[in-house]
C-alpha cells in the first residue's frame, strides 16, 4: 500500500507541475492569437454605421470590461485565479463564470462519450477474444473485417449514416438536441426517458466508431498471449479450459487499459462532428465556438480542462496498473 501511496504522491506533484506549465503556455498562446473579440465587436458596430465613440461605449457595456493592463499583470491575475478554481468570466457570455459554462457543457459530453467508450470497450474486448481464438475460421474473419471496416469509417460519416437510417428512413429515434424541451428538467420519467432516447444515436456512434479499434487491439493482444509459453505450460499441466481462458484474458487485456485510460482522458475534448450533427451542446462544440468567437477565457479554460483530464487519466491508469500488474507493483522489469 505504501508503494501505491508513494507513487500517487509523485504523480500528483508531477501532474500539478504539468498543469501549471500547460496553463502558462495556453494563456500566452490564447492571448497572442490575432483578433480580439472586444475590438471585433467594436469594429462591427462601426461598420454598422455607429460612431466610434458610441461603439466604444456599447462594447464596454456589453462586455462589462475592456481588457487592460500589461500581459504580466493579466497572467498573475489568471494564475492566482486558477488556484482558487476561478477560470475567469466568459467574454462572449457576459457575467457567466467560465467554470459554469464548462461544467454545463461537460455534462452533455461526458455521459454519452463515457457510455459509448465503455460499451465499445466491453463489446470489442469480448469479441476480440473470439476473433483471436477463431482466427482461422469464418467467425474470426468476419469479426476482424467488421473491426477494420468500422475503424476505417470516419466518425461523422457513421453519425450521418445513423441519422439517415434511424431518423429519416425509419424515423424511430430523435437526432436533434440532447432532450425534448416539452419535459420539465428533473428526476421525472418523461425527462429521463427523453434524455435516454436522445442519447441513443450519439452513444451508438461513439460506440461503433471506437469498437473497431478495441476488437483489433484485443485480437492482436490475445494472439500474442496465446503464443506465450505459459499458456502451453498450463495446457500441459492439465489446467481446466476455463482457468486457461482466464489466464489469457487477464494477460491480454492489460495493454488495453492504457488505451482505455487515454481515451477516457481525451473524452472531455468532446467529438466536434458528433456534437454538431446531433446538436449536442457539449465541450467539443463549446471549444470550437469559443475559438471562432475569440473567447480567451473560455478557450483557456477548455484547454486546461482537457489537459487536466488527460493527466488525471494517466495517473489513474498508472495506479490501476500497480494494482493489477505485479511486475509494475514491484517496480521491476519482467524478463
Amino acid at each position, binding site marked *: 500500500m505504501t508503494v501505491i501511496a508513494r507513487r500517487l504522491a509523485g504523480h500528483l506533484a508531477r501532474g500539478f507541475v504539468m498543469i501549471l506549465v500547460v496553463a502558462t503556455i495556453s494563456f500566452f498562446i490564447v492571448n497572442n492569437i490575432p483578433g480580439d473579440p472586444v475590438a471585433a465587436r467594436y469594429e462591427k458596430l462601426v461598420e454598422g454605421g455607429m460612431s466610434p465613440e458610441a461603439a466604444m461605449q456599447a462594447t464596454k457595456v456589453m462586455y462589462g470590461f475592456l481588457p487592460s493592463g500589461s500581459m504580466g499583470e493579466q497572467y498573475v491575475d489568471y494564475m492566482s485565479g486558477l488556484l482558487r478554481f476561478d477560470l475567469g468570466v466568459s467574454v462572449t457570455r457576459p457575467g457567466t463564470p467560465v467554470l459554469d459554462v464548462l461544467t454545463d457543457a461537460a455534462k452533455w459530453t461526458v455521459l454519452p462519450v463515457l457510455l459509448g467508450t465503455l460499451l465499445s470497450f466491453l463489446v470489442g474486448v469480448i469479441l476480440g477474444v473470439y476473433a483471436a481464438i477463431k482466427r482461422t475460421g469464418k467467425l474470426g474473419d468476419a469479426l476482424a473485417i467488421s473491426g477494420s471496416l468500422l475503424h476505417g469509417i470516419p466518425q461523422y460519416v457513421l453519425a450521418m449514416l445513423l441519422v439517415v437510417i434511424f431518423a429519416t428512413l425509419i424515423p424511430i429515434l430523435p437526432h436533434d438536441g440532447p432532450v425534448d424541451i416539452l419535459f420539465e428538467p428533473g428526476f421525472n420519467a418523461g425527462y429521463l426517458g427523453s434524455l435516454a432516447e436522445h442519447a441513443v444515436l450519439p452513444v451508438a456512434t461513439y460506440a461503433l466508431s471506437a469498437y473497431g479499434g478495441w476488437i483489433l487491439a484485443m485480437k492482436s493482444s490475445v494472439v500474442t498471449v496465446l503464443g506465450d509459453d505459459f499458456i502451453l505450460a498450463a495446457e500441459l499441466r492439465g489446467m481446466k479450459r476455463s482457468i486457461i481462458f482466464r489466464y489469457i484474458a487477464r*494477460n491480454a487485456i492489460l495493454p488495453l487499459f492504457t488505451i482505455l485510460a487515454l481515451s477516457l482522458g481525451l473524452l472531455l475534448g468532446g467529438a466536434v462532428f458528433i456534437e454538431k450533427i446531433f446538436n449536442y451542446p457539449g465541450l467539443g462544440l463549446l471549444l470550437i465556438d469559443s475559438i471562432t468567437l475569440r473567447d480567451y477565457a473560455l478557450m483557456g479554460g477548455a484547454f486546461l480542462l482537457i489537459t487536466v483530464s488527460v493527466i488525471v487519466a494517466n495517473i489513474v491508469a498508472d495506479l490501476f496498473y500497480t494494482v493489477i500488474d*505485479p511486475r509494475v507493483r514491484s517496480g521491476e522489469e519482467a524478463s
Partner: protein
Amino acid sequence: MAKQAPGVRIDGLTVVYKTPAGELPAVRDVSMELAAGTITGIVGESGSGKSTLAFSLLNAVQPPGRISAGSVEIDDLGNVVSFQGEQLRKARGAHIGYVFQAAQNSLNPLKTVGKQLLDLGRSHGVEDLRGLVREAKELLGRMGLDGARVLDSHQHELSGGMRQRVGIMLALVLNAHLVVLDEPTTALDMITQATILRIIREVHAERGLTTMIITHDIGVVAEVADRLAVMYGGRIVEQGPTREVLADPQHPYTRGLIRAIPRLTGDINQAQALPGRPPTLTTVPKEGCVFRERCSLRMDVCDTVDPEAIPHGDRIIACHAVKVKEHA
C-alpha cells in the same frame, strides 16, 4: 490407482507437420521403451525431432503438427495417443509431468506461484488444497528453496534456477510418476546446471519416477541418464545404455557427435566438428538414410533404403554400415 514408476512403450510413432509442401514427418517411425524407474536421455541437434517426441508423450503435439501413426503405451494409463478431451487433460499433470526450459516463462506472470498451484489443484479436482500446498512446500524445500516464500512470489521475482525448480515442483506435486524434462539445464549457469541435475537425479530416485530428459548437451545425459537415444532427422539412429553408447558409439552420427566434444585436457583441435548441417523438415531425405549426406561410411544402399533399427545386444542401431560390419 497404483502409483509407481510406469514403463512406457513408444511404438512406430510418426508425427507430421503440415507445411505448404504437404505433411512432412518431424518424427518418423520411432520405437523405444522407457523402462520403469529409469532416466532416458534423448540427444539431438535442433530440428532433430526430440521436442516433438517429448510432446508426443503427452499427446500434445502442437498444430500444425499431428501424430499420424504409432502409439505411446503408458503403464496404468493406456495409449495416450488415443486419449481425447477430459481424459487427456486429466492425464496431463496428474500422471505425466512436463518441465519446460528455465528460460521459457512457464508461469502466468500476473499470479503468484501459490495461486497457480491452487489453480492446478482445482483443475485436477484436488480436494485437500492445504495438503497440496504442504506437498509443494515440501518439494520446494527438498530442492533447497524456501517454499513459503516461493509460493508467495511472482515469476519475475524468481531466478532461472528457482523457476526451474518451481517447474519441477509443479510437474510432480500432483504425484505424477512419468516426468518429461525439455532442456532442463539450457540457459542456466554452470553451477545452477549442476544443482538442477543433482536435484533431478535425487528426486527421480526418491519418488520412484520414470524420467525422460530432452537435451542437446551430451554432458547432461552422461551425468544423469541410464539410457540414451540419439535422434537425427526425426529418427532414432542409436539407443542403448548411456555408458556403452558413450564409450563405444556405433552409429557414425553418434561417433561424430562425441568426437565434436572439446576435452578439458589436451589439444582443442582434437574436437572435430561434424561436417555439414542437420536437415530441416523440408530438406530431410524422403527415402534412404537421413544421415547419408554427412556420413563418412556412405554406401549405395544408403541412398535408397532406410536402415532399419536393429538390436545389437543392448543397443539398437539404424545403420547399413553397422549391419554390414556385424555380418562380416
